[in-house]
């Protein structure tokens, strides 16, 4: 069964790009969310195998959403999407329970490598 991925980002551009990478890598994108509030709700509904979560988003930041999801589902596989210069936030995310992080601009092989490693480790 294909790995089920949810993509959270407020920018359509980023969501589409990540979607393309995931599909190319043989993963199934089962849901998308555009802010932290939506992310938490969608996660409860679809329970994906893995989430890519942008850090800076409206309504609720990626780190807050991460915290809420981890609190409810401690085993959740969440990969943070950060930009250069957000090191402190990435550290905070890792401390909050993010499994890994990817840095924009995304490199296809690196994203897939990280996703596969996490999914393999949790299966």
């Amino acid at each position: 069964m294909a790995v089920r991925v949810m993509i959270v980002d407020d920018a359509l551009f980023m969501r589409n790009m990540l979607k393309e990478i995931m599909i190319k890598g043989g993963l199934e994108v089962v849901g998308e969310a555009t802010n932290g509030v939506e992310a938490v709700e969608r996660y409860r509904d679809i329970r994906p195998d893995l989430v890519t979560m942008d850090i800076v988003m409206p309504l609720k930041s990626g780190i807050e959403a991460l915290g809420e999801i981890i609190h409810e589902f401690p085993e959740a596989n969440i990969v943070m999407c950060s930009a250069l210069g957000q090191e402190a936030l990435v550290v905070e995310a890792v401390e909050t329970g993010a499994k890994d992080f990817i840095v924009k601009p995304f490199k296809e092989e690196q994203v897939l490598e990280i996703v596969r490693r996490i999914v393999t480790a949790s299966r």
Partner: protein
Amino acid sequence: MDMSKYRGMFLSETNEHLKNMGQLLIALEKNPHDRECIDTLFRDAHSIKGMAASMGYVRTADLAHHLEDLLDGFRQSGSVPGGAIDRLLAGLDVLEGLVEDINADLPERDITEFLAVAPPQNAPQAAPPEQPVPAVAPLTPAPSTDAPPESASMKIQIALAADAAAPAARALLILRQVKSLGQLLSSSPSEEELRSGALFSGLSIQLITDRDPADLQPLLASITDVAKVTCELSPAATVHPAPQTSRKDDAPRTVRVRTRLLDQFINLTGELLTSRYMLQAAADQEQWHEVRSGFDQLARLITDLHHHVLQVRMTPMESITGHLPRMVRDLAKKTGKQVELRLEGVDVEMDRAILEELSDPLVHMVRNAIDHGIEKSGEIVIKAWREKDLVLIEVADNGVGMDISAIRAKAVKSGLYSQTQLKSMPVRDVLQLVCHPGFSTATRVTETSGRGVGMDIVKSAVENLGGTLEFSSRPKQGTRILLKLPLSVAIIRILLVECGNETLGIPITRVFRTLELEGNSIELSGRQNVTRFDGEIIPLLSLSKVLGIDTPPLADTIQVVVSEARGRKVGLVVDRLSGQREAFVKTLSFPLDLLVGVSGATILGDGRIIFIIDPQYLLASRLKAVASKSREH
């Protein structure tokens, strides 16, 4: 391996766990079925055990293990029997003693006596020590003694790719993975350092594991952004590092700072640099308008910087109230009284220097309340809140209240004031008399409050911090002590006064009011100039005379700063008042620190150094003379 650099961290983290445990045990006594509480206590004990074992503090680890076992039993039974709390608290006391020993570089004290006492009968049997530690998140390394027999210590060096993004976060993830492979003894940089954004070039890890280095190496090398990994077994001797022996005083004091705050510092530094170049350019081109707006910007940035620096020093008041519930519980038990302690608003943050000075006074006030205030049963409320630049702390009890006639009688008996003086003295001021050195209306010295720290020490501690202290009390209803304290000590507002050719600063917190007096509002009482202020007669003292400065003869109108010393208002006559300002107070070193009544110095904009005087101390000896003279009349 050299573990000495971890000693400070071990002490601070262990103390935090101990404090937490003390509070939780008191909460647990009230609610013995609180599962979460038991779990947290268990994890605290587990963490201490792990850290102590890693550091080689065998007895501390053993005792923590013992407490962990006890708590594990309660985790399984779901509640803690009453008698067990005493046992756990006693264990905590011994544990605190051990940590004190470590802190003082002494050998760890003997714990066999404590361990020999059987656990309370109604408590479930403690789990046998051989039983493996239940799986909890391995936040801290488990002790090496729990490691499988064939495991060995391995040294792992990891270099990250030069272009690795967010290296600290990556390093934290690597450490997380490494922990799943064995028991992490140490890492450099440590997790704490990584969290606070430490710069580093590589990761050096000491791990106890039964894995083969040849298996570990490729596993770690495949992690994103890892450039190079070396794994090598190290000699077994390094598994039990000897406790090191650095002196307590040498240990640098550390503060935990949120990384976000540090980021803000960097941003501010950047803006200050920009501002500097802008000013330089504007000055070179002689564009004075630009220069002026540059200075405005600079002023804003400095205010901002000041604000942020203060933030770093801010600590919640909890850090000094944490042990009070335990203390109240023990004192209540000892005195056979029923005392409830309520803490409100203790998340209010204050300068850590102020909090440190406040810790003992707070303990004393609580002791006093139990000893002299509450008779059989009652409540003590400690409440803290912010009001502008002040933090207010109220310590209130609903006990018998202060005995005003006893205070008056004692004041007369010890020759402080005459009957007549006391009759006209406002009740508020009479209550203040208990702060006089050596003044205690309690005829017996009790174990609870008769321990050397009197209300005089409390008052002077509060006043040294630039704060004030007020009493209010009603018979049969209780006593309230209100402390008003500045948020921070280093920067204060001062009033500049001139005296002869000298400019001096007086902290604003010491100034009641400034007055301009005409000659006809000055009266003579005996040989003392006095004036009326708020319906009170206050003495007028020339600051020049007090300081021994030559001064021009008095003009028609004189400038007076009304301050307070020894609980009485006093008018200080100065030549001129020259404004208020914020001042960064520098403490004085020898021999200047011997000057009585001079509390520090600051530098004015024009480069002059001025002294900051504290009327309270400056006038203490002088007022005594005034008081005894006026009694003779």
